[in-house]
């Protein structure tokens, strides 16, 4: 569930810019529901390129400085405003861009809902002008998706040849000196992951069937994203891990920012699901966000009490789904106002993922933090009811 939420809620920190800017681009050009970054922001990229007089690494469309500006936003000398694509620490973007410039592969880590995919798409668009060389990692991703496959009709008719070969996005990126992207690297089975080792260290992809190889052209690089919270997936081997520089994308910094993101998304989802309108439940949303943040960070917002963290991710995306669920409850079964009781069950479900350990964590949180807090009596009671 968390995956689907992540994919739809493209990245809390950057919801705003993406919407405001893809709209005009849409109107001008393609009919696509969601145009690629390089199309949606073509004007900005062109403006940046025009003013970019710094040295560019081979086959880069922009210099590293311009790429950083593209992501972080800024104003060009001619007054063109570059919208910020990523709202977060500047340091992270600098490290990410520098990593690509030093010809190292980049691994973006983070819990679901921290703009990993979004950042990787925009990096590829700014560096190579093409964000479509993409391998989506799943448990069923085969080696062919990373190396190459065969057109079996041709293979049978003419025998093995370059014509019968179906190159993967990674292979194409190598041949053209572009940036390839691998999404959800840790969901790919370990043996398939390891095919990346040769590609990243030798920068070559042998084709034993033809006795040939494809050598990476300068400018080739790879951006992978992975979820660092679910440990249930295939962890990277240390050999592969060593080939990557890692940047961890953090969760929203302030509670206010997170409340903003949650209310906005809840509003959107509510409309798309045609839920009956429920009066503003911002207090309850704030409460959900507070509970999530406190448990996630292992410390209360006033910074005075430490807490144990449960095993669940408790990402912003999950907070959104808790509130959406609560709204549906309030609208269909309640009195139409979002109350503590409507979100309590959802919170319990999100927090207690491991019935033994997480329950203790949750009970302890209830008894030591929630019970004492002013104005949280109703919430405490509602939670006691559902946890009993």
């Amino acid at each position, binding site marked *: 569930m968390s995956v689907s939420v992540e994919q739809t809620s493209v990245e809390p920190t950057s919801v705003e810019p993406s919407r405001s800017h893809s709209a005009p681009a849409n109107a001008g050009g393609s009919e696509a529901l969601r145009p690629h970054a390089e199309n949606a922001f073509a004007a900005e990229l062109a403006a940046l390129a025009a003013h970019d007089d710094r040295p560019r690494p081979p086959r880069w469309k922009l210099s590293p400085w311009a790429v950083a500006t593209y992501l972080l936003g800024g104003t060009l000398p001619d007054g063109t405003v570059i919208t910020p694509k990523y709202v977060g620490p500047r340091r992270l973007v600098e490290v990410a861009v520098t990593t690509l410039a030093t010809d190292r592969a980049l691994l973006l*880590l983070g819990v679901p809902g921290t703009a990993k995919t979004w950042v990787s798409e925009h990096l590829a668009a700014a560096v190579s002008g093409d964000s479509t060389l993409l391998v989506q990692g799943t448990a069923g991703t085969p080696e062919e998706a990373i190396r190459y496959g065969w057109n079996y009709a041709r293979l049978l008719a003419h025998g093995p040849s370059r014509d019968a070969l179906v190159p993967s996005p990674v292979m194409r990126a190598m041949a053209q000196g572009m940036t390839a992207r691998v999404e959800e690297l840790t969901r790919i089975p370990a043996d398939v992951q390891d095919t990346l080792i040769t590609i990243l260290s030798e920068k070559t992809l042998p084709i034993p069937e033809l006795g040939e190889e494809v050598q990476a052209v300068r400018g080739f690089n790879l951006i992978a994203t992975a979820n660092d919270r679910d440990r249930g997936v295939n962890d990277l081997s240390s050999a592969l891990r*060593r080939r990557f520089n890692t940047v*961890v994308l953090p969760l929203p910094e302030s509670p206010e920012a997170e409340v903003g993101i949650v209310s906005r998304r809840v509003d959107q989802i509510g409309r798309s699901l045609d839920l009956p309108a429920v009066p503003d439940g911002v207090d309850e949303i704030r409460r959900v966000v507070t509970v999530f943040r406190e448990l996630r960070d292992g410390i209360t917002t006033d910074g005075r009490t430490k807490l*144990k963290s449960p095993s669940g991710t408790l990402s912003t995306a999950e907070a959104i789904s808790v509130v959406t669920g609560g709204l549906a409850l309030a609208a269909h079964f309640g009195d139409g106002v979002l109350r503590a009781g409507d979100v309590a069950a959802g919170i319990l479900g999100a927090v207690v993922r491991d019935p033994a350990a997480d329950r*203790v964590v949750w009970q302890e949180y209830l008894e030591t933090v929630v019970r004492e807090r002013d104005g949280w009596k109703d919430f405490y009671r509602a939670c006691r009811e559902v946890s009993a």
Partner: protein
Amino acid sequence: MTGVEAAGSRWSGAGPLLLGVRHHGPGSARAVRAALEAARPRAVLIEGPPEADALIPLAADEEMRPPVALLAHAVDEPGHSAFWPLAEFSPEWVAIRWALEHDVPARFVDLPAAHTLAWRTERPDGDGSAEEGTAEEGTARHPSGVRPPGTDVRIDPLAALAGAAGYDDPERWWEDVVEHRGAGEGDVFAPFLALEEAMGALREAYGGGGRDRDLVREAYMRLQVRSARREFGDAVAVVCGAWHVPALRRRAAVTADRALLKGLPKVRTDMSWVPWTHRRLSRASGYGAGIESPGWYAHLFGVPDRPVERWLTRVAGLLREEDRIVSSAHVIEAVRLAGTLAAMRGRPLPGLSEATDAVRAVMCDGSDVPLALVHDRLVVGDVLGEVPRAAPAVPLQRDLNRLQRRLRLAPEASARELELDLRKETDAGRSRLLHRLRLLGIGWGEPAVSRGSTGTFRETWRLCWEPELSVRVAEAGVWGTTVLAAATARAEADAVAARALAEVTALAEHCLLAELPDALPVVMRVLADRAALDADVGHLAQALPALVRSLRYGDVRGTDTGALAGMAAGLAERIFVGLPPACAALDADAAEEMRRHVDAVHGAVALLGDTSAAVHDGLRARWHGVLRVLSGRDTVPGVLRGRAARLLLDDGEVEQEQAARLMGLALSPGTPPADAAAWVEGFAGGGGGMLLVHDERLLGLFDAWLTGVPREAFTDVLPLLRRTFSAYEPGVRRTLGELVRRGPGQGGGGAGGTAAGVPGFAADLDQERADAVLPVVRLLLGLDGPGPNPVPGSGSGERSGDELAGVAG
């Protein structure tokens, strides 16, 4: 050292050589050494308290290892002190060492500490700009580090310079321009001249920066420089904060300077060298003019070349020691990343922030956890300075002597015992002193078991002053200048460093005994954090009794224990939540240990209920709920179930019949014998059966159950009963047998209760005779108004009165 003599330029020799530095700047230190080598002055003047001149030769001592600090303190008031820390990479230290190596006189030329210390007593809150006066200064705790701070604290002028250069962070600008500058290239004096010009321009713009005291200090320095020039000619080098250079260059009338210095307040001061640590140099420890990364600076200063490569190699070494897989390839990639990042950020060389970013991305998989280790061990570092034995005594020793005189407690080499009655002022003071010294690792007194009285107002100590304790005192001088301040600082540091929860609770208890109220908040903070994160209920249960004990003790000594009570209640809540799951599926040893924890918690909860009824009303009820869960859950080992049932019975939470039913369940044939035996063990208590002898009611319960066992089942029960009772002493067994033969149930069948009558006592309370005792008890406890000796903590007296009445009943 770096071939500077070959560097062409000569010092013009017009006027003294003014070397403006940033305190603790490795680049400045290198530059100072190069400049001194090139100029070869005949005297070196250094910004620092002139009282320390006599101590300068000690810097050359074999045993002297930086970081060290010059410590000035008021003779009459050791708590009143100031420190001038010097690290290996401090320009002042470099200058001192250079002078000593070349047999050139070195002198401190700043305003004497006699004045600066007096200043601070006179105007405790000073004006806002008094840079020496950090908030806590003057009070006995944490004598504030009073390095007359370098330019890094004067954020404003530096920020202006940095802003002009396009930097948003003045620290980084200084690093790029000055500290990261390679040594020995070009004119060794040029950087100082450029800096002087810049500072001159700044001072023109900002004036004195609103710091009147600076003007006085500079006047004094000017006078000193002038007199040195009379002695040595112009061949004099002055090492001082860059900010002061323009003022020293300025020609001012001697009379005007003298006028500024007239009538300054003065106190008698004493100076010494004390060992210092990198951690205390770092800003984190609260010293105004600290630096964030002493370890990094020491590295920059110490390495001959390629600082970033060497730094990252050291980081890799550290991470390898901690079992992280870090290969040379990682180091190579980290160096590349750091270099490119520096270029991207427009810095001439990778600095600490680039190196740190590279370490995080390449070696730590983006995680901040190993990075924290790197920061702690390398960026700050664990370096501890040493001071030669010849250094004068530290003020801590003085303070200790003073206290010993006042409390009439002379240090004697022969061991002796000391009985203290804490109700007496002097004895309480002695107890506090001994407890504080123990905290500081100065084991003059060891607590001994008191003979006779076990009251909380008595303490027995075994005293023995051994010569090496003086060394300990000197070592403890790092922590502060008075026993109180040092013990407080030490307790806080210990709390932060403590590993186990129980250590922290013990420390909290100790803090109360030693009366360190200032350390208590920190200890409580750490305690709360540890308790929240500790997943082992055993640890929590261990911690609770000590905490409750401290609470009671605090009451006796009249300490404010509100925070402590809240803490204890919170701890109890956590135990309540965690205990039931933690009691499932334990083996015999673990179950026995857990039984002890349950007992401890039970006692603590009862005490807690007594002490802070207002804080937590429902605490006892919730604990009974937990016990009920324990007594009824099959996965809980027998010994615990039995214990829980017994505790409930004792508190009257479970009816006699209910307890009998539980016993029947536990001892029914379906239960494995070992488990059943354990239940009996838990229920009857571990006291070797003594409880059964004395508690008629319990025995009655057993008897009733046993006689109720059907004939067929009896043979099955027999082995486990034998197992339980065979562990008792023969005497106990015989007494039990006699009691059973006499028929324990004679009073009132199975449900005898208290009315069943303990042998030798009447069945009910004889009101008249009981009342007759009360006046005597009241007299003993001093409860009647005009009692000659009011008992401290009359609350406890009240309580014991009740208890007595209870016993009489």
